[in-house]
Protein backbone atom coordinates (compact mmCIF):
# COMPACT_ATOMS: atom_id res chain seq x y z
CA UNK A 1 0.00 0.00 0.00
CA UNK A 2 2.55 2.56 1.12
CA UNK A 3 6.10 2.17 0.01
CA UNK A 4 8.91 4.48 1.09
CA UNK A 5 12.24 3.51 -0.39
CA UNK A 6 15.75 4.88 0.06
CA UNK A 7 14.78 8.38 1.15
CA UNK A 8 17.38 11.11 1.62
CA UNK A 9 16.37 14.46 3.08
CA UNK A 10 18.41 17.48 4.06
CA UNK A 11 16.94 20.34 6.05
CA UNK A 12 18.96 23.42 6.90
CA UNK A 13 22.10 21.65 5.76
CA UNK A 14 21.47 18.80 8.20
CA UNK A 15 20.74 15.33 7.08
CA UNK A 16 17.44 14.10 8.49
CA UNK A 17 17.01 10.91 6.50
CA UNK A 18 19.67 8.69 5.07
CA UNK A 19 18.56 5.70 3.02
CA UNK A 20 15.32 5.31 4.96
CA UNK A 21 12.90 2.55 4.00
CA UNK A 22 9.39 1.78 5.13
CA UNK A 23 6.72 -0.54 3.90
CA UNK A 24 3.12 -0.47 5.05
CA UNK A 25 0.74 -3.19 3.96
CA UNK A 26 -3.01 -3.55 4.40
CA UNK A 27 -4.30 -3.90 7.98
CA UNK A 28 -1.01 -2.91 9.54
CA UNK A 29 -0.22 -0.31 12.18
CA UNK A 30 3.19 1.30 12.34
CA UNK A 31 4.27 3.54 15.21
CA UNK A 32 6.98 6.13 14.68
CA UNK A 33 9.05 6.91 17.72
CA UNK A 34 12.03 9.13 18.32
CA UNK A 35 13.25 12.19 20.11
CA UNK A 36 12.26 15.71 19.06
CA UNK A 37 13.74 16.68 15.73
CA UNK A 38 14.35 13.12 14.64
CA UNK A 39 12.07 13.63 11.66
CA UNK A 40 8.69 12.10 12.54
CA UNK A 41 6.68 15.05 11.24
CA UNK A 42 9.03 15.40 8.27
CA UNK A 43 8.35 11.81 7.29
CA UNK A 44 4.58 12.27 7.51
CA UNK A 45 4.84 15.52 5.57
CA UNK A 46 6.84 13.79 2.89
CA UNK A 47 4.29 10.99 2.60
CA UNK A 48 1.46 13.50 2.30
CA UNK A 49 3.39 15.39 -0.36
CA UNK A 50 4.03 18.62 1.50
CA UNK A 51 7.79 18.20 1.28
CA UNK A 52 9.72 16.56 -1.50
CA UNK A 53 12.58 14.26 -0.54
CA UNK A 54 15.97 15.04 -2.01
CA UNK A 55 16.40 11.47 -3.22
CA UNK A 56 14.32 8.33 -3.28
CA UNK A 57 10.62 7.89 -3.87
CA UNK A 58 7.37 7.41 -2.02
CA UNK A 59 4.60 5.43 -3.61
CA UNK A 60 1.03 4.86 -2.54
CA UNK A 61 -0.75 2.09 -4.45
CA UNK A 62 2.29 2.02 -6.75
CA UNK A 63 1.81 5.64 -7.78
CA UNK A 64 4.05 8.49 -6.69
CA UNK A 65 2.35 11.25 -4.68
CA UNK A 66 3.15 13.92 -7.23
CA UNK A 67 1.22 11.94 -9.83
CA UNK A 68 -1.74 11.45 -7.51
CA UNK A 69 -2.37 15.17 -7.28
CA UNK A 70 -6.06 15.66 -6.90
CA UNK A 71 -6.83 12.08 -5.84
CA UNK A 72 -4.79 12.43 -2.67
CA UNK A 73 -7.87 13.22 -0.61
CA UNK A 74 -9.47 9.91 -1.53
CA UNK A 75 -6.43 7.83 -0.74
CA UNK A 76 -5.29 9.01 2.67
CA UNK A 77 -6.46 11.06 5.62
CA UNK A 78 -3.79 13.06 7.37
CA UNK A 79 -4.39 14.60 10.79
CA UNK A 80 -1.38 16.85 11.41
CA UNK A 81 -0.21 18.19 14.74
CA UNK A 82 -2.00 21.46 14.12
CA UNK A 83 -5.76 21.10 14.22
CA UNK A 84 -6.57 22.85 10.91
CA UNK A 85 -9.75 24.38 12.35
CA UNK A 86 -10.99 27.91 11.70
CA UNK A 87 -11.46 29.68 15.02
CA UNK A 88 -14.35 31.83 13.83
CA UNK A 89 -16.47 28.98 12.54
CA UNK A 90 -18.53 26.55 14.58
CA UNK A 91 -17.70 22.86 14.90
CA UNK A 92 -20.40 21.96 12.39
CA UNK A 93 -19.25 24.52 9.86
CA UNK A 94 -15.67 23.39 10.20
CA UNK A 95 -16.49 19.74 9.61
CA UNK A 96 -18.89 20.54 6.77
CA UNK A 97 -16.26 22.70 5.09
CA UNK A 98 -13.77 19.86 5.48
CA UNK A 99 -16.23 17.40 3.96
CA UNK A 100 -16.79 19.77 1.08
CA UNK A 101 -13.06 20.18 0.51
CA UNK A 102 -12.44 16.45 0.49
CA UNK A 103 -15.40 15.80 -1.81
CA UNK A 104 -17.25 13.60 0.66
CA UNK A 105 -20.99 13.28 1.09
CA UNK A 106 -22.07 11.92 4.44
CA UNK A 107 -25.68 11.37 5.45
CA UNK A 108 -26.92 13.01 8.57
CA UNK A 109 -27.19 9.82 10.54
CA UNK A 110 -23.57 8.91 10.08
CA UNK A 111 -22.50 12.45 10.79
CA UNK A 112 -24.33 12.57 14.11
CA UNK A 113 -22.96 9.15 15.00
CA UNK A 114 -19.42 10.34 14.30
CA UNK A 115 -19.93 13.39 16.48
CA UNK A 116 -21.37 11.14 19.18
CA UNK A 117 -18.28 8.95 19.30
CA UNK A 118 -16.23 11.71 20.88
CA UNK A 119 -19.35 13.12 22.64
CA UNK A 120 -19.21 16.39 20.69
CA UNK A 121 -22.99 16.54 20.17
CA UNK A 122 -23.57 19.16 22.82
CA UNK A 123 -20.95 21.56 21.42
CA UNK A 124 -21.55 21.13 17.72
CA UNK A 125 -22.97 24.63 17.31
CA UNK A 126 -20.39 26.48 19.40
CA UNK A 127 -17.46 28.33 17.88
CA UNK A 128 -14.11 26.59 17.81
CA UNK A 129 -12.38 29.45 19.63
CA UNK A 130 -14.52 28.75 22.69
CA UNK A 131 -13.37 25.13 22.90
CA UNK A 132 -10.55 23.73 25.00
CA UNK A 133 -7.38 22.26 23.52
CA UNK A 134 -8.57 18.68 24.03
CA UNK A 135 -11.95 19.37 22.48
CA UNK A 136 -10.30 20.88 19.41
CA UNK A 137 -8.21 17.75 19.02
CA UNK A 138 -11.37 15.66 19.29
CA UNK A 139 -13.01 17.68 16.52
CA UNK A 140 -9.95 17.12 14.35
CA UNK A 141 -10.04 13.39 15.07
CA UNK A 142 -13.71 13.20 14.11
CA UNK A 143 -12.54 13.69 10.52
CA UNK A 144 -11.17 10.15 10.66
CA UNK A 145 -14.64 8.76 11.25
CA UNK A 146 -16.09 10.72 8.36
CA UNK A 147 -13.40 9.79 5.88
CA UNK A 148 -13.53 6.77 3.63
CA UNK A 149 -9.83 6.40 2.89
CA UNK A 150 -7.84 3.32 3.75
CA UNK A 151 -4.62 4.98 4.84
CA UNK A 152 -4.51 7.09 7.97
CA UNK A 153 -1.55 9.30 8.79
CA UNK A 154 -1.68 10.65 12.33
CA UNK A 155 0.85 13.06 13.78
CA UNK A 156 0.77 12.97 17.60
CA UNK A 157 -2.96 12.13 17.83
CA UNK A 158 -2.73 11.52 21.55
CA UNK A 159 -1.47 14.99 22.42
CA UNK A 160 -3.70 16.77 24.92
CA UNK A 161 -6.59 14.32 25.10
CA UNK A 162 -7.77 12.50 28.21
CA UNK A 163 -7.51 8.76 28.93
CA UNK A 164 -11.15 8.18 28.13
CA UNK A 165 -10.72 9.58 24.66
CA UNK A 166 -7.52 7.60 24.19
CA UNK A 167 -9.41 4.35 24.71
CA UNK A 168 -12.05 5.47 22.22
CA UNK A 169 -9.37 6.36 19.70
CA UNK A 170 -7.73 2.98 20.25
CA UNK A 171 -11.05 1.27 19.53
CA UNK A 172 -11.49 3.29 16.34
CA UNK A 173 -8.02 2.40 15.16
CA UNK A 174 -8.56 -1.30 15.78
CA UNK A 175 -11.84 -1.15 13.88
CA UNK A 176 -10.14 0.58 10.97
CA UNK A 177 -7.45 -2.08 10.80
CA UNK A 178 -10.05 -4.82 10.86
CA UNK A 179 -11.67 -3.22 7.83
CA UNK A 180 -8.44 -3.71 5.90
CA UNK A 181 -7.19 -0.18 6.59
CA UNK A 182 -3.70 0.74 7.68
CA UNK A 183 -2.34 3.39 10.02
CA UNK A 184 0.97 5.18 10.33
CA UNK A 185 1.22 7.33 13.44
CA UNK A 186 3.70 9.00 15.72
CA UNK A 187 3.34 9.32 19.45
CA UNK A 188 5.16 10.06 22.66
CA UNK A 189 2.45 8.59 24.83
CA UNK A 190 2.53 4.81 25.35
CA UNK A 191 -0.47 3.23 23.69
CA UNK A 192 -1.13 -0.36 24.48
CA UNK A 193 -2.08 -1.54 21.03
CA UNK A 194 -1.06 -4.52 19.00
CA UNK A 195 1.41 -2.99 16.58
CA UNK A 196 2.83 -4.60 13.51
CA UNK A 197 6.00 -2.66 13.70
CA UNK A 198 7.67 0.04 15.72
CA UNK A 199 10.16 2.30 13.96
CA UNK A 200 12.57 4.29 16.07
CA UNK A 201 13.95 7.31 14.25
CA UNK A 202 17.35 8.61 15.30
CA UNK A 203 19.16 11.82 14.62
CA UNK A 204 21.89 11.35 12.05
CA UNK A 205 25.36 12.46 13.02
CA UNK A 206 27.63 12.88 10.05
CA UNK A 207 31.36 13.09 10.38
CA UNK A 208 32.54 16.32 8.84
CA UNK A 209 35.79 16.60 6.96
CA UNK A 210 37.35 20.03 6.59
CA UNK A 211 38.56 19.21 3.08
CA UNK A 212 34.92 19.22 2.01
CA UNK A 213 35.03 23.01 2.15
CA UNK A 214 37.10 22.98 -0.99
CA UNK A 215 34.14 22.15 -3.21
CA UNK A 216 31.36 24.51 -4.18
CA UNK A 217 28.75 21.78 -3.83
CA UNK A 218 29.18 21.77 -0.09
CA UNK A 219 28.30 25.42 0.08
CA UNK A 220 24.79 24.60 -1.04
Amino acid sequence: MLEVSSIYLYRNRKQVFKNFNLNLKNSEIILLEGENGAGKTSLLNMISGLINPDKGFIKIYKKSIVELGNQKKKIFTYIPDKNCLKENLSVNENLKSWLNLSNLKVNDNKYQKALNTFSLNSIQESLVKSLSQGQKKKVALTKLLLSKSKLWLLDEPLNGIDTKTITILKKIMIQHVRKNGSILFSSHVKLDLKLTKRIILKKIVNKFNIDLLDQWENFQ
Partner: protein
Amino acid sequence: MFTKLANPSTFQKISDFIFPKCFGLFIVFLISGFYYVFFSSPPDYLQGETVRIMYIHVPCAWLSLGIYSMMAGCSFFSIVFKHTLADIISRACAPLGACFTLATLITGSIWGKPTWGTWWVWDARLTSELVLFFIYIGHIFISNAYEDKRKGDRYAAILTLLGIVNLPIIKWSVDWWNTLHQPASISKLSSPSIDPSMMIPLFLMVFSFLFFFISLVLLRIKGEVISRKLEILEQHRA
Protein backbone atom coordinates in the same frame (compact mmCIF):
# COMPACT_ATOMS: atom_id res chain seq x y z
CA MET B 1 32.96 21.23 -16.30
CA PHE B 2 33.08 24.74 -14.94
CA THR B 3 31.64 23.54 -11.65
CA LYS B 4 34.26 20.86 -11.28
CA LEU B 5 37.20 23.03 -12.29
CA ALA B 6 36.67 26.07 -10.14
CA ASN B 7 36.88 25.06 -6.53
CA PRO B 8 37.03 27.76 -3.88
CA SER B 9 40.76 27.63 -3.28
CA THR B 10 41.77 27.83 -6.95
CA PHE B 11 39.25 30.61 -7.38
CA GLN B 12 40.82 32.35 -4.41
CA LYS B 13 44.28 31.95 -5.90
CA ILE B 14 43.17 33.46 -9.20
CA SER B 15 41.45 36.38 -7.54
CA ASP B 16 44.43 37.01 -5.25
CA PHE B 17 46.55 37.18 -8.39
CA ILE B 18 44.19 39.59 -10.17
CA PHE B 19 43.36 41.87 -7.26
CA PRO B 20 46.67 43.86 -6.88
CA LYS B 21 46.87 44.38 -10.64
CA CYS B 22 43.33 45.73 -10.80
CA PHE B 23 43.90 47.98 -7.87
CA GLY B 24 47.14 49.29 -9.41
CA LEU B 25 45.39 49.98 -12.70
CA PHE B 26 42.62 51.75 -10.82
CA ILE B 27 45.14 54.08 -9.14
CA VAL B 28 46.96 54.79 -12.41
CA PHE B 29 43.77 55.51 -14.33
CA LEU B 30 42.36 57.59 -11.50
CA ILE B 31 45.42 59.85 -11.26
CA SER B 32 45.72 60.34 -15.00
CA GLY B 33 41.95 60.75 -15.26
CA PHE B 34 41.88 63.39 -12.53
CA TYR B 35 44.70 65.27 -14.23
CA TYR B 36 42.72 65.39 -17.44
CA VAL B 37 39.41 66.10 -15.71
CA PHE B 38 40.61 69.05 -13.69
CA PHE B 39 43.49 70.54 -15.65
CA SER B 40 43.71 69.35 -19.19
CA SER B 41 40.13 69.27 -20.46
CA PRO B 42 38.27 72.33 -21.68
CA PRO B 43 34.95 73.58 -20.28
CA ASP B 44 31.86 73.04 -22.41
CA TYR B 45 30.64 75.71 -24.84
CA LEU B 46 27.29 75.84 -23.11
CA GLN B 47 27.53 74.32 -19.65
CA GLY B 48 30.93 75.71 -18.77
CA GLU B 49 32.65 74.08 -15.84
CA THR B 50 29.57 72.05 -14.89
CA VAL B 51 30.49 69.58 -17.58
CA ARG B 52 33.14 68.10 -15.30
CA ILE B 53 30.39 66.38 -13.30
CA MET B 54 29.81 64.25 -16.37
CA TYR B 55 33.16 62.53 -15.85
CA ILE B 56 31.80 60.94 -12.68
CA HIS B 57 28.15 60.73 -13.70
CA VAL B 58 28.61 58.79 -16.93
CA PRO B 59 30.99 56.09 -15.60
CA CYS B 60 28.70 55.56 -12.61
CA ALA B 61 25.65 55.27 -14.85
CA TRP B 62 27.34 52.84 -17.19
CA LEU B 63 28.57 50.75 -14.28
CA SER B 64 25.13 50.72 -12.66
CA LEU B 65 23.73 49.17 -15.83
CA GLY B 66 26.74 46.91 -16.38
CA ILE B 67 26.69 45.58 -12.84
CA TYR B 68 23.01 44.87 -13.11
CA SER B 69 23.39 42.92 -16.33
CA MET B 70 26.22 40.95 -14.73
CA MET B 71 23.99 40.20 -11.75
CA ALA B 72 21.19 39.13 -14.08
CA GLY B 73 23.57 36.75 -15.83
CA CYS B 74 24.66 35.36 -12.48
CA SER B 75 21.05 34.94 -11.37
CA PHE B 76 20.22 33.03 -14.51
CA PHE B 77 23.26 30.85 -13.92
CA SER B 78 22.30 30.27 -10.30
CA ILE B 79 18.70 29.34 -11.13
CA VAL B 80 19.59 27.02 -13.97
CA PHE B 81 22.82 25.41 -12.78
CA LYS B 82 22.50 26.09 -9.02
CA HIS B 83 26.13 27.11 -8.70
CA THR B 84 26.96 28.86 -5.46
CA LEU B 85 29.62 31.06 -6.99
CA ALA B 86 26.96 32.81 -9.07
CA ASP B 87 24.97 33.59 -5.92
CA ILE B 88 28.07 34.83 -4.15
CA ILE B 89 28.96 37.11 -7.05
CA SER B 90 25.51 38.68 -7.28
CA ARG B 91 25.43 39.10 -3.51
CA ALA B 92 28.81 40.85 -3.71
CA CYS B 93 27.68 43.04 -6.62
CA ALA B 94 24.36 44.31 -5.29
CA PRO B 95 25.55 46.91 -2.72
CA LEU B 96 28.20 48.20 -5.13
CA GLY B 97 25.60 48.54 -7.84
CA ALA B 98 23.31 50.36 -5.44
CA CYS B 99 26.15 52.76 -4.54
CA PHE B 100 26.93 53.47 -8.19
CA THR B 101 23.24 54.04 -8.95
CA LEU B 102 22.94 56.40 -6.01
CA ALA B 103 26.07 58.23 -7.18
CA THR B 104 24.53 58.51 -10.64
CA LEU B 105 21.34 59.96 -9.23
CA ILE B 106 23.15 62.41 -6.93
CA THR B 107 25.69 63.65 -9.48
CA GLY B 108 22.94 63.89 -12.08
CA SER B 109 20.88 65.95 -9.70
CA ILE B 110 23.81 68.25 -8.94
CA TRP B 111 24.36 68.67 -12.68
CA GLY B 112 20.67 69.16 -13.32
CA LYS B 113 20.24 72.13 -11.00
CA PRO B 114 22.47 74.55 -12.94
CA THR B 115 21.77 73.05 -16.37
CA TRP B 116 18.05 72.33 -16.42
CA GLY B 117 17.12 74.52 -13.50
CA THR B 118 15.76 71.74 -11.28
CA TRP B 119 17.12 69.06 -9.00
CA TRP B 120 14.68 66.39 -10.08
CA VAL B 121 12.01 65.77 -12.69
CA TRP B 122 9.83 62.74 -13.20
CA ASP B 123 11.28 62.07 -16.57
CA ALA B 124 11.43 58.53 -18.00
CA ARG B 125 15.22 58.26 -17.76
CA LEU B 126 15.41 59.53 -14.21
CA THR B 127 12.46 57.51 -12.98
CA SER B 128 13.70 54.26 -14.47
CA GLU B 129 17.12 54.85 -12.90
CA LEU B 130 15.39 55.39 -9.55
CA VAL B 131 13.53 52.11 -10.05
CA LEU B 132 16.89 50.45 -10.69
CA PHE B 133 18.05 51.79 -7.34
CA PHE B 134 14.95 50.35 -5.66
CA ILE B 135 15.59 46.98 -7.27
CA TYR B 136 19.16 46.98 -5.98
CA ILE B 137 17.90 47.80 -2.49
CA GLY B 138 15.27 45.07 -2.80
CA HIS B 139 17.96 42.60 -3.80
CA ILE B 140 20.05 43.48 -0.76
CA PHE B 141 17.08 43.15 1.59
CA ILE B 142 15.68 39.94 0.15
CA SER B 143 19.03 38.18 -0.01
CA ASN B 144 19.67 39.01 3.65
CA ALA B 145 16.13 38.47 4.90
CA TYR B 146 16.28 34.70 5.29
CA GLU B 147 18.12 32.75 7.91
CA ASP B 148 19.00 30.26 5.24
CA LYS B 149 21.19 32.15 2.80
CA ARG B 150 20.35 29.87 -0.12
CA LYS B 151 16.68 30.73 0.11
CA GLY B 152 17.48 34.43 0.07
CA ASP B 153 19.73 33.91 -2.91
CA ARG B 154 16.98 32.19 -4.84
CA TYR B 155 14.37 34.88 -4.29
CA ALA B 156 16.89 37.63 -4.96
CA ALA B 157 17.76 35.88 -8.22
CA ILE B 158 14.10 35.85 -9.21
CA LEU B 159 13.81 39.55 -8.42
CA THR B 160 16.90 40.30 -10.48
CA LEU B 161 15.57 38.39 -13.46
CA LEU B 162 12.23 40.18 -13.22
CA GLY B 163 13.93 43.55 -12.95
CA ILE B 164 15.86 43.01 -16.17
CA VAL B 165 12.87 44.58 -17.98
CA ASN B 166 14.10 47.84 -16.58
CA LEU B 167 17.46 47.77 -18.39
CA PRO B 168 16.23 48.39 -21.96
CA ILE B 169 13.85 51.00 -20.56
CA ILE B 170 16.75 52.90 -19.02
CA LYS B 171 18.91 52.51 -22.08
CA TRP B 172 16.40 53.56 -24.71
CA SER B 173 14.01 55.74 -22.73
CA VAL B 174 15.63 58.83 -24.23
CA ASP B 175 14.98 57.55 -27.74
CA TRP B 176 11.48 56.16 -27.27
CA TRP B 177 9.91 59.09 -25.49
CA ASN B 178 10.69 62.77 -25.51
CA THR B 179 12.43 63.27 -22.23
CA LEU B 180 14.26 66.12 -20.58
CA HIS B 181 17.40 64.02 -20.37
CA GLN B 182 19.53 64.29 -23.53
CA PRO B 183 20.06 61.24 -25.78
CA ALA B 184 23.27 59.26 -25.62
CA SER B 185 26.35 61.12 -26.82
CA ILE B 186 28.42 58.02 -27.48
CA SER B 187 26.95 55.20 -29.51
CA LYS B 188 28.35 52.55 -31.77
CA LEU B 189 26.56 53.44 -34.96
CA SER B 190 27.13 57.14 -35.32
CA SER B 191 30.23 59.18 -34.71
CA PRO B 192 30.26 60.48 -31.16
CA SER B 193 28.84 63.94 -30.61
CA ILE B 194 31.39 64.61 -27.95
CA ASP B 195 34.71 66.31 -28.56
CA PRO B 196 37.91 64.17 -28.39
CA SER B 197 39.39 66.48 -25.76
CA MET B 198 36.50 65.49 -23.50
CA MET B 199 36.40 61.89 -24.61
CA ILE B 200 39.88 61.09 -23.25
CA PRO B 201 39.16 62.01 -19.61
CA LEU B 202 35.76 60.33 -19.85
CA PHE B 203 37.23 57.02 -20.90
CA LEU B 204 40.08 57.30 -18.40
CA MET B 205 37.49 57.73 -15.66
CA VAL B 206 35.38 54.87 -17.02
CA PHE B 207 38.34 52.51 -16.87
CA SER B 208 39.39 53.70 -13.45
CA PHE B 209 35.86 53.12 -12.09
CA LEU B 210 35.74 49.73 -13.78
CA PHE B 211 38.94 48.56 -12.14
CA PHE B 212 37.81 50.03 -8.84
CA PHE B 213 34.64 47.97 -9.11
CA ILE B 214 36.48 44.78 -10.05
CA SER B 215 38.89 45.03 -7.16
CA LEU B 216 36.09 45.76 -4.68
CA VAL B 217 34.03 42.86 -5.98
CA LEU B 218 36.95 40.48 -5.62
CA LEU B 219 37.42 41.62 -2.02
CA ARG B 220 33.74 41.18 -1.27
CA ILE B 221 33.62 37.73 -2.85
CA LYS B 222 36.58 36.67 -0.72
CA GLY B 223 34.81 37.87 2.41
CA GLU B 224 31.58 36.15 1.41
CA VAL B 225 33.32 32.82 0.73
CA ILE B 226 35.08 32.94 4.08
CA SER B 227 31.88 33.79 5.92
CA ARG B 228 30.08 30.88 4.27
CA LYS B 229 32.89 28.52 5.19
CA LEU B 230 32.64 29.71 8.79
CA GLU B 231 28.89 29.17 8.75
CA ILE B 232 29.25 25.57 7.58
CA LEU B 233 31.92 24.90 10.20
CA GLU B 234 29.74 26.37 12.92
CA GLN B 235 26.76 24.27 11.90
CA HIS B 236 28.76 21.09 11.92
CA ARG B 237 30.25 21.82 15.29
CA ALA B 238 26.81 22.18 16.86
